[in-house]
């Protein structure tokens, strides 16, 4: 019995380890490929370590690779993404927080309907809004600007941020708010003194969720970014899918890691909130 159990456990660990290898393999392949020379890539095998590791592909991916007509590497687009993501994350989270506060503790007639109606925004395929949005941004002369892209991300992020905060704030006891109101505290004072200080975890969840969504977005970027405000995902796609010239797989892989780095680092340092955000989003579905 004991031996059989140990055998079972060993098989279980082996299986889990194999799965871990499967999930790690693409990242490993990206890393080793990015440090190889093109000759070595053509000759050597996919999984082999680079014989003479070189960061040349990284330098080129960052500052010299051609993404379509431009050959400035990924750097300008990386900064486009930063300039788009940071304000969009901050604003959509701030509005979501106050919205969630209203929907959880200042319900009025019809506020539940409002909440349900807002949640529809989490489910629509964005293809169904991009044509009018492109027209609107064009008319407002915000097409192909980082501000326009950030605006779009804020508008379509609100449903998610509102949901996160609302679902978190309903767990704050109603009595706490009632007592404060009896003591004469008003709408904003209660938010500042009671709700906001309790909100750090959900702010973290929301920041991470929004940042990941916005940084990784491709559809809005490719439709509304044009060439001037193009985010890094669009530039990466252009780089990987250009068919002109010699295909430099090492540069492609270095560029892919550069584009992935911000969200990967966030995942490594704040993985706990990451998981919580995903589950929170999923619980509501």
């Amino acid at each position, binding site marked *: 019995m004991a031996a059989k159990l140990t055998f079972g456990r060993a098989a*279980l*660990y082996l*299986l*889990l380890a194999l*799965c*871990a290898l499967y*999930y790690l393999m*693409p*990242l490993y*392949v990206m890393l080793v*490929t990015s440090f190889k020379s093109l000759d070595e890539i*053509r000759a050597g095998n*996919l999984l082999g370590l680079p014989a003479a590791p070189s960061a040349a592909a990284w330098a080129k991916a960052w500052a010299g690779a051609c993404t379509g007509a431009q050959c400035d590497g990924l750097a300008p687009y990386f900064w486009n993404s930063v300039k788009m993501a940071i304000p969009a994350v901050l604003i959509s989270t701030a*509005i979501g927080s106050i*919205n969630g506060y209203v929907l959880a503790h*200042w319900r*009025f007639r019809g*506020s539940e309907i409002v909440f349900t*109606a*807002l949640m*529809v*925004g989490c*489910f*629509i*395929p964005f293809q169904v809004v*991009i044509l*009018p*949005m492109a*027209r609107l941004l064009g008319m407002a002369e915000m097409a192909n600007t980082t501000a326009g892209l950030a605006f779009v991300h804020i*508008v379509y992020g*609100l*449903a998610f941020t509102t949901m996160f905060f609302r679902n978190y704030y309903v767990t704050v006891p109603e009595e706490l708010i009632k007592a404060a109101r009896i003591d004469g505290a*008003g*709408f904003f004072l209660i938010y500042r003194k009671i709700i906001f200080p309790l909100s750090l975890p959900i702010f973290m969840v929301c920041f991470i969720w929004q940042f*990941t969504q916005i*940084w*990784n977005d491709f*559809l809005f970027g*490719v*439709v509304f970014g044009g060439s001037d405000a193009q985010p890094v*995902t669009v530039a*990466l*796609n252009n780089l*990987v*899918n250009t068919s002109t010239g010699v295909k430099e*797989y090492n540069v492609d892989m270095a*560029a*892919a890691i550069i*584009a*992935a780095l911000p*969200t*990967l680092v*966030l*995942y490594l340092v704040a993985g706990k909130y*990451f*998981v919580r955000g*995903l*589950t929170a989003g*999923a*619980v509501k579905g």
Partner: protein
Amino acid sequence: MPSLSTLADRWLPRLVLSPTIVASLLFVYGFIALTGFLSLTESRLMPNYEYAGFGQYAELFDLERWWTAAANLGIFGALFVLFCLALGLLLAIFLDQKIRLEGALRAIYLYPIALSFIVTGAAWKWILNPGLGLEHMVRGWGFPDFTFDWLINPDMAIYTVVIAGVWQSSGFVMALFLAGLRGIDDSIIKAAQVDGASLPTIYRRIVIPSLRPVFFSVFLILAHIAIKSFDLVMALTAGGPGTSSTVPAVFMYQYAFSRGQLGLGAASAMMMLATIMAVLVPMMYLETKGTRHGR
């Protein structure tokens, strides 16, 4: 007469919420209506606001490329959901067996969800590259006849999207199932063990049925990802070779933005919305009905 602060407390909440409500009415509901209307016009390169009936839909349903896209969505959606569910549930159950290093393993299984689908697509495009990737490597191991050319094989290209998609999303499904497993009362399982039930039986009869709500949300999320999937296909195959791995989202983008067929693009977008509704509404209905019957 109510005091000023009472008045403020009555109206402030609505005032604060109103920009979001207006934005939602305009940019979600209004824009859906506009897209719907656009699909009923003869708009091509420029929008044309004259009602023209369902001609665009008729044209859409006459296009072979649309049906390729729809069929691919069916294949991709079914396999993606199935494999993610199976792999995610298995990994969650395995990880729930008091595994050492559980935290590290969980982190490894889950990290792909932090990546952009473009990054995932770029990585798998390289791994599946027939000339230099996996195929090349296995041939080098002494199997010179080994072929794995799905990426450039029109019949198989859509399955590469499944491979990459499952790699990216299955860890997330694992995390959701694991959270569900941790929510199950241990004493029920212990009682079943005392009654002599074997571990597989306990899982089949007690644990998995009690994960029903998790199945429900996971299914919704995966179906949603599948129907919207655009970036992964663009990065991995760009819908090719030819149009063999195109999906509705790629179709919509190409017709609306590269081919200057706004009306047709709008019609395909409405079809995507209809597909999501067709999945979502019955599921929601079933689930709320299920809850009402006292679970």
